[in-house]
């Protein structure tokens, strides 16, 4: 069997290096084609992970393990299960979209831009499949660098402020996690996650480690109240940066909760579940209200992301199959929908160089095809049945009602708020008379943009109409995870 997981990490990274070496600033075309070939290869090598995936087991598959730093018992140890495999695919798919989406909109330092995304993609895959804590940590931290560059170099006016804020926020969180890793190593003599799952820990220790992990992952998700870096980062990031940030990077935080917090600290997770549930509900409702009044489309979508990610953390900490599967479905769907939302804002930005709602109005008159796509994605963002956005929200709300009626009730408020902020934005941007001469001069989607959005539309509709293939992949892993979390480690 081919080492698919290593390929998933190294194909995009090496392709990124190749783009850097071969691409010249004066010859952007070459850089674009190499990047596209690399992203496509990176996507293709992850497909066998799905086609050859064994649905009947929850143990790690496609495992690779070799020594890396023997002195500290650090291994190059990779593997996927039902929880991570779809995230790897989502990441490789998104990278392909981003390269495609940036085709004409990036004009300066194209090679470096493309390289940053490809390298980033490899790092993200690495974080999703690392089974050794230090290996995970390396990828987890390394991904900050390309994202920092993407925002800092190709970003908007306040890009430096946004980039530094993003960097510091996320880095400071992860340092506490490193400390926790070292403590766990000291206790168990191993950096293997599988060993840590079986490691008995007192409740007090678990709570302390929980806090350390929480600092790292909650910032990434981001959970209220450590979310304020995200609405600052998005408006400054270029379209591709926003897409990867929203679709994939946020998922690392949520993934950390499933991969580290729940199985390593089951007792603390139960003990502190009320805390996480409360923060999740605040994210859903408070942030929903904040999103309504945002004057900037990208800020609005950023807040909407935080609100949607609230369903993910809520779902995991209900400790039920529906809740966890809903949370994972929400992660995938948010990958599609937030990518699509930022891409359509990018389409407008490429034409008008603004994403302030007030600069638009009546875009549907001049861009009817575009308006139809935006309607679909807006409805997906509002969680309409038949779109992927419904699946996760629905399952999590069902699980929450079962857990406690009032928690379900608060979570369900997002049905109203999500529709309010998304459709009010749609009304102001796309409906109405043509607002100004610049809107009147807009041209509808070109062929590249059309097929880009059509691809995401197909994904959003497919998952909404038939989520079973997605949920079946995660099912066995989720059931086993919950069984593991139900057992006390004290």
């Amino acid at each position, binding site marked *: 069997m081919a080492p698919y997981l290593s390929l998933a990490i190294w194909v995009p990274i090496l392709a990124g290096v190749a783009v850097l070496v071969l691409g010249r600033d004066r010859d952007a075309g070459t850089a674009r084609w190499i990047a596209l070939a690399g992203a496509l290869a990176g996507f293709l090598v992850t497909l066998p992970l799905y086609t050859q995936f064994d649905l009947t087991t929850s143990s790690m598959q496609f495992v690779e393990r070799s020594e890396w730093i023997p002195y500290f018992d650090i291994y190059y140890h990779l593997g996927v299960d039902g929880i991570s495999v779809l995230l790897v695919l989502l990441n490789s798919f998104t990278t392909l979209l981003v390269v495609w989406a940036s085709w004409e909109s990036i004009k300066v330092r194209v090679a470096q831009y493309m390289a940053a995304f490809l390298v980033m993609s490899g790092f993200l895959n690495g974080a999703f499949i690392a089974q050794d804590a230090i290996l995970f940590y390396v990828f987890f931290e390394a991904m900050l660098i390309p994202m*920092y560059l993407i925002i800092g170099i190709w970003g908007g006016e306040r890009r430096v402020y946004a980039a*530094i*804020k993003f*960097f*510091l926020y996320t*880095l400071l969180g992860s*340092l*506490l996690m*490193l*400390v926790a890793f*070292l*403590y766990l190593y000291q206790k168990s003599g191993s950096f293997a996650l599988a060993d840590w799952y079986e490691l008995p820990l007192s409740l007090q220790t678990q709570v302390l480690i929980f806090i350390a992990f929480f600092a790292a992952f909650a910032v990434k998700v981001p959970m209220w109240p450590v979310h*304020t870096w995200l609405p600052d980062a998005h408006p400054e990031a270029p379209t591709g940066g926003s897409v990867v940030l929203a679709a994939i990077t946020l998922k690392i935080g949520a993934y950390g909760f499933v991969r580290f917090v729940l199985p390593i600290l089951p007792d603390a997770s139960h003990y502190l579940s009320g805390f996480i549930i409360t923060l999740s509900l605040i994210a859903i409702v*408070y942030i929903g*209200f*904040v*999103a*309504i*009044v945002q004057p900037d489309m990208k800020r609005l979508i950023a807040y909407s992301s935080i609100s949607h990610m609230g369903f993910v953390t809520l779902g995991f900490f209900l400790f*039920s*199959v*529906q809740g966890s*599967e*809903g949370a994972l479905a929400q992660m995938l769907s948010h990958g599609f929908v937030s990518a699509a939302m930022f891409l359509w804002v990018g389409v407008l930005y490429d034409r008008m160089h603004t994403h302030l709602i007030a600069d638009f109005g*009546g875009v*549907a008159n001049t861009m009817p095809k575009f308006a139809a796509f935006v*309607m679909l994605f807006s*409805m997906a963002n509002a969680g*309409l*049945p038949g779109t992927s956005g419904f*699946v996760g929200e*629905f*399952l999590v*709300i*069902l*699980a*929450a*009602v*079962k857990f406690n*009626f*009032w928690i*379900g*009730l608060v979570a*369900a408020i997002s*049905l*109203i*708020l999500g*529709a*309010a902020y998304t*459709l009010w934005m749609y*009304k102001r941007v796309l*409906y*109405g*008379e043509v607002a100004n001469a610049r809107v009147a001069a807009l041209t509808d989607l070109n062929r590249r943009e059309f097929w880009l959005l059509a691809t995401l539309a197909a994904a959003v509709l497919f998952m909404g109409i*038939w*989520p*079973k293939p997605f*949920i*079946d992949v995660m*099912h066995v892993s989720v059931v086993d995870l919950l069984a593991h979390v139900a057992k006390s480690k004290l």
Partner: protein
Amino acid sequence: MTMQQLYLVVPMVPLLASIVVGLWGGAMPRAAAHRITILAVAISFVASIFIYRDVMAGNSFNGDLYVWAMTGGVRMAIGFLIDPLTAIMLIVVTFVSLMVHVYTIGYMADDDGYARFFSYICLFTFSMLMLVMSNNFLQLFFGWEAVGLVSYLLIGFWFKRPTAIYANLKAFLANRVGDFGFILGIGLVLAYFGSMDYAEVFAKAPSIAPATVGLWGAAQWSVLTVTCICLFIGAMGKSAQVPLHVWLPDSMEGPTPISALIHAATMVTAGIFMVARMSPLFEYSDTALSMITIIGATGALFLGILGMVQTDIKRVVAYSTLSQLGYMTVALGVSAYSMGIFHLMTHAFFKALLFLGAGSVIIALHHDQDLRNMGGLRKYMPVTYWTMLVGSLALCGIPPFAGFFSKDAILEATHLSVIPGRGYAAFAVTAGVFVTAFYTFRMMFMAFHGAPRFGHAAHEHGDHDAGPPKESPWVVTVPLVLLAIPSIYTGWMYIEPMLVGDFFGKSIFVLPEHQVLAGFRAHWHGITAFMLHGVMSLPFWLALAGIASAWYLYLVNPALPARIAAMAGPLTTVLLNNYYFDRFNEWFFAGGSRRIGKLFSNVGDGKIIEGIVNGSAHLVGWWGRMLRQLQSGYVYHYAFTMIIGLFAMLTWWVIV
């Protein structure tokens, strides 16, 4: 073709047509857009007739199409339940939809969005069919939200108009408030029944009935009461019950064909259908039924009263729809589900007729909808006039038109019921008869009788074609005639099988102690006796009084209404402002959300959280400046924090 394949034909052919016309409508001739969709809906209609006959022959079906998801031992599937209740809904939906499709050829003839409109109404037909054919809660919710989506798209069809895009957002959000309750209801069903499948849930209902849930303090609530109230909140949104009715009058901003199809005949009756479908659950909760009765009765009378002061012809019909939905809801509340469905059916025909007739008038007057600019249209538009007269008589409940039978049955049911709130309901629906007759004939007299007032208005609008109004083309009048026919005969034709016989069989469940229909059956002595009894009882005379008052006030003494309005003073103001519901919602909900949003955004995020974050950042920045001599560029952050990390790690080591 097997029956199962035929079931699939009913929703799928319109879906296919909608997709084809939606994607390639711009590239095809206009005629192709309407031919494809009309053919599709016609196929659907014919298939529905076959299914109806099959069901009448005693067959039924309950099976899944595909599994949507399996999670936590719960099977969530898409599937069909075909029984008498579904069959009658299929006929109503496909027939009215077909009429509206044909009518649209005339109404939208000059519109730029011709193909888009046909694609939308065909998509609507698909969604509504999936809703009524569902055999489970998941698909019900799918259809539920899908019809809301298409309604949103169609109210905002003329998206350049500020009023239209205000109305469609309002409609979607009001519906979402209902859906918020609905999804909680579904959540409770899943939590306590462990299934999404109707058959399994309904079978368990008797055993769940005694179960209670503690929601607040020590008080215990019946699980079914909480569930049914949540589900009914969904129905309140979709079927425009007080106080979630506010979106329906504004939805008149959409083109008239959809007002007829979506906002009168089908979508707004989804809530009525849903409660009837869930009768095995609602029957076990007297509290929920009582609440339904009171809310329905309030709408039936008080929203009808608002119809008496409207000047827009479509809004008169819209308020009448609100009032009639109240009647249907009262029928559900007093456990006379089959009467609710019977009234739903007759109402679908005559209300679609009235809307399409109003649309015909609107075409003739070049899109002027103001009743004050009409008058005397009778001789210009005879077909529209006579068909609308049929619709009006049916709406007022004059025998032998369809509405008489369905409405009189509901009036009788309120007297036979034992549910708390029945007295109020009986009063409201009886008084409502006068109100209905008054606003209906006020509209008829103002539009079709008396002196013509339209020439003046057309001139004011600067209309170049100021000739006398003409009767609409055949694509408009033929649907009117075809809808007038069932508005005449469906009443006496179906009252006996539906209300006296066992038409609905097992699809509607009523507990013995709620057997209102048994009482109705006991008094049943045939159609002639029912009509004679109706003519001799109060409601009929109230209806005549309503018509007579409208005649006196608007034809004999037209100056009087203004004087009465002035005399009533504050009351008139309250009515003209729709009881201030809109004003309150705009201030409290819309404005309140924005105020909360601003508060959270500026103070919560901006001042408090960012204050703490930036405060710590300044601290870090100070350290950063200290260390800048050592490193340059972004690398210094990394190096710096690694040092801090190492420091923290070592500290931890030392302490632990």
